[in-house]
């Protein structure tokens, strides 16, 4: 019962690691990198071990009723409002905990190799551990307020780590962009929380969802209270999980070190939005309108960013757009009502996308910092292990039968068509995105590892990465290949274990599972689409390497549109950023701040100085003038004391009395 009772141990360990590394690195002149690695790996590793122990205890003791809530201390108490440091545990939390600590730990190991020659080593690991802490708070929180603490905390760490090389202008700008764009979403999230508190009088999950589940469901197209709440919460999710229209920060976030991209901007933080929507599934289920918006935004984002990924040349940017696209898939699943499928894709995605990023990092490492795929090629034989693991991840994300991505994507596509809130258009968008996914992923693989080498042999010194980087790659490769079988439906010889495991959270699937012939048909379609993507990529980038350029030449307008990412950044710049900047400069800075506020403050100071200058003359230094003032003062005091008597003496009645 140790960990079940003391849930706080799990987030506390990385926090301790962050504190030790941060303080020691800052104040001890010689805090060796080995000590930093030991503390960082030890704290996250212990945290992972604690989660494993927790899973054992969870299965063994089966705490009931779920969610298992522990209240540690009251954080905010104001009137009737209470927000505590309360942690809760259920199956969904367990999945998230395993992903965050497990994948997080692997990426920590990888980072010790990748960052070995970088300055600020301790700083990097202090941030990374701090991130793990906040992420664990986020998934363990038992109320919206504490979830928001984790939510903002991971945003902060994301900002710090994107701008890790803060001397680089583009990196610090990218950090700011991520932070500010997230702020827009967070505004919606906060409004949603306020509305929840106003309606239910509490922010505790148990209280809110308990009360909400007794409310009647709203009809489609009705903008009732629950719909508004859900849409506001979803606004927060679009910021954190990089969905339309707030996805613009994620591609720029690739300025950070590659392990950061893998951990924060692929495997964990960006999935927080999906987690939050899944956590609030009780609310979302009551609002078909909100579910439709979630599904539509997810499908649109998936399709939109997959097309951009087709033509990007920076290896990490392709993966960034791919991440956005896959997150869109997760929202598509949630919007279709298949929350378990969304969470399952979240998990498999965290395996193969982390692997893709780490392998890409290994490639970048091998080429001494080169990220442009046009200057790669023919690396397969030179960095054999990296190539092999990357191939596994590519097969997984493309949805090759038997790999993890196949099962999760198949579940989503099935839900998109036949789910409680699915539709043919969602299915079509998902299927087309699957085609594009296979195409751009194999394009990446072929451009990087196959064909003619296009890098400068004398400069590059191609070398395989050290063992500390390869070991996490291999473990993640195994997970990417095999991770899907835990959710394999009966038809594939599995037992839908994952879905049944999450059933206590999301409820059993509402409708009967489709017939196995049906499943077979859809699985065949999905596999066929993945194969088509692979063949297209093969034709374009291996068989006829000159074909892409010719195609781009003949479709110049479309190609430019994609290459410039639909000009969304430019559009936001013109519509939002520049007007705001103008308003801030001319109105808020020059008029309100400089003239108004500074003017008032300076005016008060100047008038006080002027008054002082006048009064100063009283202090002439002339002793006799002081004497006069003393006398005047004494007379004034006497006048005040004797005023009643004096008034009586001067009153008309008194005068007549005297006369009489």
């Amino acid at each position: 019962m140790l960990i079940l009772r003391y849930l706080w141990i799990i987030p506390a360990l990385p926090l301790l690691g962050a504190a030790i590394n941060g303080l020691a690195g800052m104040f001890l002149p010689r805090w060796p990198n080995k000590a930093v690695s030991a503390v960082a790996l030890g704290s996250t590793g212990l945290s992972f071990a604690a989660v494993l122990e927790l899973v054992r205890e969870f299965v063994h003791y089966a705490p009931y009723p779920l969610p298992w809530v522990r209240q540690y201390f009251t954080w905010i108490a104001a009137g009737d409002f209470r927000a505590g440091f309360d942690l809760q545990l259920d199956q969904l939390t367990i999945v998230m905990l395993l992903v965050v600590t497990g994948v997080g730990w692997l990426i920590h190991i990888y980072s010790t190799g990748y960052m070995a020659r970088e300055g600020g080593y301790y700083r990097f690991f202090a941030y990374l551990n701090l991130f793990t802490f906040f992420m664990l708070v986020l998934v363990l929180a038992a109320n919206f307020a504490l979830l928001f603490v984790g939510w903002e905390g991971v945003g902060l760490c994301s900002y710090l780590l994107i701008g890790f090389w803060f001397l680089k202008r583009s990196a610090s700008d990218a950090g700011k962009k991520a932070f500010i764009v997230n702020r827009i979403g967070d505004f919606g999230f906060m409004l949603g929380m306020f509305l929840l508190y106003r309606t239910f009088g509490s922010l505790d999950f148990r209280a809110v969802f308990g009360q909400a589940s007794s409310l009647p469901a709203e009809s489609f197209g009705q903008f009732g209270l629950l719909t508004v709440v859900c849409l506001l919460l979803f606004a927060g999710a679009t910021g954190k999980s990089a969905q339309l229209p707030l996805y613009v920060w994620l591609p720029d976030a690739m300025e950070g070190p590659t392990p950061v991209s893998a951990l924060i901007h692929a495997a964990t933080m960006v999935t927080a939005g999906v987690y939050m929507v899944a956590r609030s599934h009780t609310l979302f289920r009551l609002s078909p309108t909100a579910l439709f918006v979630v599904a539509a935004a997810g499908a649109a984002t998936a399709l939109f960013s997959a097309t951009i990924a087709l033509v990007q040349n920076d290896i990490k940017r392709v993966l960034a757009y791919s991440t956005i696209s896959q997150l869109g898939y997760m929202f598509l699943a949630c919007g279709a009502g298949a929350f378990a499928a969304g969470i399952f894709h979240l998990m498999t995605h965290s395996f193969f996308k982390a692997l893709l990023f780490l392998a890409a990092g290994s490639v970048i490492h091998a080429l001494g910092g080169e990220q442009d795929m046009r200057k790669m090629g023919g690396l397969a034989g030179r960095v054999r292990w990296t190539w092999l693991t990357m191939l596994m991840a590519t097969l997984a994300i493309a949805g090759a039968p038997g790999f993890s991505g196949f099962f999760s994507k198949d579940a989503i596509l099935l839900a998109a068509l036949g789910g409680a809130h699915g539709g043919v258009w969602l299915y079509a968008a998902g299927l087309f995105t699957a085609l594009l996914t296979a195409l751009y992923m194999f394009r990446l693989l072929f451009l990087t590892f196959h064909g003619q080498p296009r890098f400068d042999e004398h400069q590059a010194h191609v070398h395989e990465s050290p063992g500390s980087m390869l070991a996490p790659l291999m473990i993640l490769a195994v997970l990417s290949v095999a991770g899907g079988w835990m959710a394999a439906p009966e038809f594939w010889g599995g037992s839908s274990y994952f879905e049944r495991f999450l059933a206590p959270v999301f409820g059993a699937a509402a409708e009967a599972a489709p017939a196995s012939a049906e499943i077979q048909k859809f699985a065949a379609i999905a596999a066929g689409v993945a194969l088509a993507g692979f063949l297209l990529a093969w034709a374009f980038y291996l068989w006829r390497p000159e074909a892409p350029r010719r195609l781009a030449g003949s479709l110049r307008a479309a190609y430019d549109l994609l290459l410039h990412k639909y000009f969304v950044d430019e559009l936001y710049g013109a519509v939002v950023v520049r007007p705001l900047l103008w308003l801030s400069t001319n109105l808020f800075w020059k008029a309100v701040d400089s003239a108004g506020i500074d003017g008032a403050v300076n005016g008060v100071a100047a008038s006080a100085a002027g008054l002082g200058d006048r009064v100063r003359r009283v202090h002439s230094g002339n002793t006799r003038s002081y004497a006069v003032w003393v006398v005047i003062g004494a007379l004034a005091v006497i006048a005040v004391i004797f005023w009643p008597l004096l008034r009586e003496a001067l009153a008309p009645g008194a005068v007549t009395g005297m006369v009489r």
Partner: protein
Amino acid sequence: MPLTSECLILSALLFGLGVAGFIFKRNLITIFMAVELMLNAVNLAFVAFSRVWGMDGQVFVFFVIVVAAAEAAVGLAIIILIARNRQSLNVERVDFLKL
């Protein structure tokens, strides 16, 4: 008690003289004497009141005399120092508090 009111009138006159001398005289010694005059005017008032309300006033007079003696010692010492430094007893020239 007619005598009491006459004593008080005398005390007020003496005090007024002291104030006037304090303000209008230039010589530090004279000003000092004016201060002593005010103190003694107050003493007179105390004694006069003690005829009506008991002996407390007279006790106060002794205190005032003691304090006045101490004040005279300190005050005269300051005046001597000023006279040495400034070669003058004119109060107009004692203005070095001025910035």
